[in-house]
């Protein structure tokens, strides 16, 4: 298991907009380059993409939480 860290500080979002479903649920599988979350900072929404493949075992942050650069955001069980 490994942890993906935020590259930017800001506000963490798991979904494209409040009414829409999350990009990915816990238990889902990801491939490198796949969009998993957004971080809002300086009036832009920046895509957080997976840098490894595996199964999302746990999100360490909730939708709308503040996040710091370098903070763990998601745990991945690597395939």
């Amino acid at each position, binding site marked *: 298991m490994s942890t993906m860290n935020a*590259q*930017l*500080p*800001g506000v963490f979002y798991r979904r494209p907009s409040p009414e829409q479903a999350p990009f990915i649920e816990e238990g889902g599988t990801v491939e490198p380059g796949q969009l998993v979350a957004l971080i*809002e*900072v300086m009036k832009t929404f*920046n895509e957080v993409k997976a840098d490894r493949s595996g199964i999302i075992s746990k999100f360490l942050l909730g939708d709308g939480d503040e996040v*710091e*650069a*370098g903070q763990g955001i998601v745990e991945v069980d690597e395939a």
Partner: protein
Amino acid sequence: MNEVLVRSGGLYTTVQDAGRDGHYAIGMPPSGAMDRYSFTIANLLAGNPGPTAALEATYLGPELEFTDSRTVAVTGADCSVTVSGASAPMWMSLRVGPGDVLGFGPLKAGARPYVAISGGLDVPEYLNSRSTYKLTGIGGFGGRALAEGDRVPLGQAQDPPAEGTTVPEEFLPEFPDVVELRLVVGLCSYRLTENALDSFLDTTWKVTKDADRIGYRLRGGTIDFVEREQPFGAGSDPANVVDLGYPIGSVQIPGGNEPIILLNDAVTGGGYATVGTVVSADRDRVAQTGTGGYVRFNATDVDSAVQARQDRDAWLHKLRTVLTG
């Protein structure tokens, strides 16, 4: 070819120099490097005379491919730097050649890395400056942040310092958990109750996600304004005054709960009561405090503010002597 290729722009990387002075009266802020200290040292290490145009990144640095031999230096925020995949030190003159790629890893502390390249970034001057001012899309590289595929022209390199020239430890900035900012209280601080001013100075403020070159919005407390009869022309909100000029570094508190520090690309005036001004030397520290960071304001007077600026300049002068021998 005298240019550098942008393989990735990073989050928000712009060309900046010492800024565009002399146009504040028409409403144009000076722009320019926000952390003047790190910017100056980057140029010293790249062998550029004076405040030559360099790159200011935000949180996540760019990826740059060189097309000729250059001396480069990365200063400012603490981050991991690579040259063609190999780890490279910050605060050091680095030699690169055609095909070499300067890259950035995760940020460890601070907010803004600076990249100076020998010869400087040779974008056209606009009103005597190469600084980017995004609001009206002027200066810098097309008046905007760098993006993948851009080819930024470079100037003729001067005589750079020897490869490996490095900044002694005592000259490196610190990145404390709570950043102390010296503030000259005044301007329209009469709008605050005495308790409100004390509480403003006692509060540790957190930097919100709305923190960029225009200004930093803070959160952490509530500030009360003195009750009043609205002066003619001021507007009805207790935080409003008859529109006036805003100093760079001034702090205003719209709504009484979210102070804003105005910075290099800020609006030059408006209708909110300003309650004090961060001394110019401490804007370097603001620049290296990012979203999620903490600041406190310490009241000081104008003489100390001028002294702080002189001290910073003297310190840079000393470093120049150390580096150039």
